[in-house]
């Protein structure tokens, strides 16, 4: 009988443990996270906040020159490698205060209930920002993203080693003559590029048949690829070491390789470059509401823009920036004085992926094949 009572007790306790696991799994995920005290309502004064701001940023954007005159302790930076990766990580439970994604994904962040709107009245520099970019960062009238930087995505290639042919084209990514010297970005945007190569009308929202064709193209072409880069520092390292001659890149890499003395060209392909706008979003339930706004304001300043343009060859959303300090060839090459260059038909400004999940799945399969 004692044995019975032991077994019964043990069963009871095991059952309770299993039940606890069941309760845990049935728990709603932490939007109303019980571990954070402050809600998303703006707290009174900045002194009540802890001040250790956590920013989820692209590598290279952690430099203090980009948030000049931010009066508080320097934030702690963790690095994101792509919008998909950032979205996945924060959805999985990583909790920064601020993230720096591109505008085409804001709707996904809102749909996953991960972010809260900014209060533009707290940002002194807000009124100087480009109006169409501001509008792009709004969902249902709420300002979810403070637009800050913009630029292109295209091919960077060694002009002294690579002959792109009569017309420059994105198909250089698949060129067998340079097998082993090509690097792609580890991101579904490669599918968009393949879609433009195929001539599809809207590669940001392809049909099943179009997706199947693009998937096939990329899987076939994978053999010419040396590696898929996740962080642009990896890619720049390989490029500078002469291992890679053709790569997916943003203007900052072109400018950096140029300054290293390499003979590089930032392609303007027949299909048209891709373009993007990025900015800051505010994570829900952040403890540092006021600090976050101060940080965003610092980024939105004209000084930040001048540094960004001169050093990274990206555009900045602040329209009051004087371009006199910036090398004119840079301004001309990237039309830095004219943000309308981002739009059709001169470039393909990124759009929200209605089938983002499917694109992600297909990209994962392309990698696994």
């Amino acid at each position, binding site marked *: 009988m004692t044995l019975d009572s*032991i077994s019964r007790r043990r069963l009871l306790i095991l059952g309770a443990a299993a039940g606890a696991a069941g309760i*845990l799994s049935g728990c709603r995920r932490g939007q109303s996270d019980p571990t954070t005290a402050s809600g998303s309502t703006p707290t009174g004064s900045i002194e009540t906040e802890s001040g250790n701001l956590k920013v989820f940023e692209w590598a290279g954007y952690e430099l203090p020159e980009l948030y000049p005159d931010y009066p508080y302790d320097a934030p702690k930076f963790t690095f994101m490698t792509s919008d998909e990766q950032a979205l996945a990580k924060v959805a999985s439970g990583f909790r920064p205060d601020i993230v720096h994604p591109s505008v085409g994904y804001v709707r996904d962040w809102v749909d996953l209930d991960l972010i809260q709107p900014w209060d533009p009245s707290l940002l002194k520099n807000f009124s100087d920002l480009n109006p169409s970019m501001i509008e792009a960062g709004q969902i249902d009238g709420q300002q979810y993203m403070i637009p800050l930087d913009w630029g292109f995505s295209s091919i960077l290639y060694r002009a002294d080693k690579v002959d792109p042919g009569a017309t420059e084209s994105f198909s250089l990514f698949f060129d067998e003559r340079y097998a082993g010297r090509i690097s792609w970005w580890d991101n579904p945007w490669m599918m968009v590029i393949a879609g433009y190569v195929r001539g599809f009308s809207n590669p940001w929202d392809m049909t099943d048949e179009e997706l199947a064709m693009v998937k096939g193209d990329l899987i076939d072409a994978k053999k010419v690829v040396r590696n898929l880069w996740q962080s642009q520092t990896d890619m720049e390292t390989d490029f500078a070491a002469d291992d890679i001659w053709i790569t997916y890149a943003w203007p900052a890499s072109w400018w950096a390789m140029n300054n290293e003395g390499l003979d590089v060209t930032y392609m303007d392909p027949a299909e048209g470059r891709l373009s993007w706008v990025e900015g800051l979003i505010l994570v829900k339930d952040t403890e540092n509401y006021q600090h976050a706004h101060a940080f965003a304001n610092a980024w939105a300043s004209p000084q930040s823009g001048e540094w960004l343009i001169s050093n990274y060859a990206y555009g900045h959303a602040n329209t009051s920036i004087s371009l006199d300090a910036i090398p004119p060839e840079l301004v001309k090459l990237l039309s830095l004085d004219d943000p309308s260059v981002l739009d059709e038909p001169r470039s393909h400004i990124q759009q929200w992926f209605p089938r983002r999940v499917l694109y992600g799945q297909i990209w994962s399969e392309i990698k696994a094949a």
Partner: protein
Amino acid sequence: MSDIAISRPGLWGLRALFAATAIFLYAPILILVLFSFNRGTTAVFPIQGLTTDWYRQLFTNHDLIESLRTSALVAVLSSVTAVLLGVLMSLSLVRRRFLGKSVVTGVALAPLVMPYVVLGISLLILFNAAGIPLSIFTVTIAHVVVTLPFTVLILVPRLSRVDRSLEEAAQDLGAPPARTFLAVTLPLILPAVVSSFLIAFVVSFDEYVVASFLVGDRATYPIYLFSQLRFPNRLPQVLAVATVMLVVSFVIVLLAEVSQRFGEQRLLGR
């Protein structure tokens, strides 16, 4: 015996194979150490002169020191917990009778054969479902699961060799079970306890896979190391810290081994 197992020329062949394998095993480690003293920033031949600069730079690398501190904290917390739980588990397996012992043993050892990727994602799912944000505590919890089997594997054999008559004598003298454990059993298995703590510590400190899924904004040392592999000009520093950590873990493992042997002598020569 040697004549039966192997012939003369065969013996020399085996010796050569042994030496070759030993060289194969240690060469990369030695190359690592060698290039940590290299003056140049790339690991290429020929060596460009020797320097200890990279080692000196380690002391001013805040991110590195921070990551070492984080890893040490996680390792200590998880190892202590794992040893405590391991002692409890071992006591129950060796000194107690109950149904389903083999199942419990299986569960206790199962993390050893579980692919760490799956362990990582399963805990990510758990913490996500429970709304627990990722932090060093989530990593610590995972590391207890990872290291518990090691402690059990070390403690159970030791415990089973402790003479029960000692414990029974203490109990006959009126000592309650807890006292018996603390006064009699524990001192006898102490070397194994120490050894299992050291092994758990080393395993947790170096663990990358599970940590990579569960870490918050404080990087552990392996994660920091991983992130530095992208920067070629930081390679020599990485090599320097790698050498230091290799030596340290080497020493710790030797200590654990010595501690176990010492424990064995004590048990036998009691």
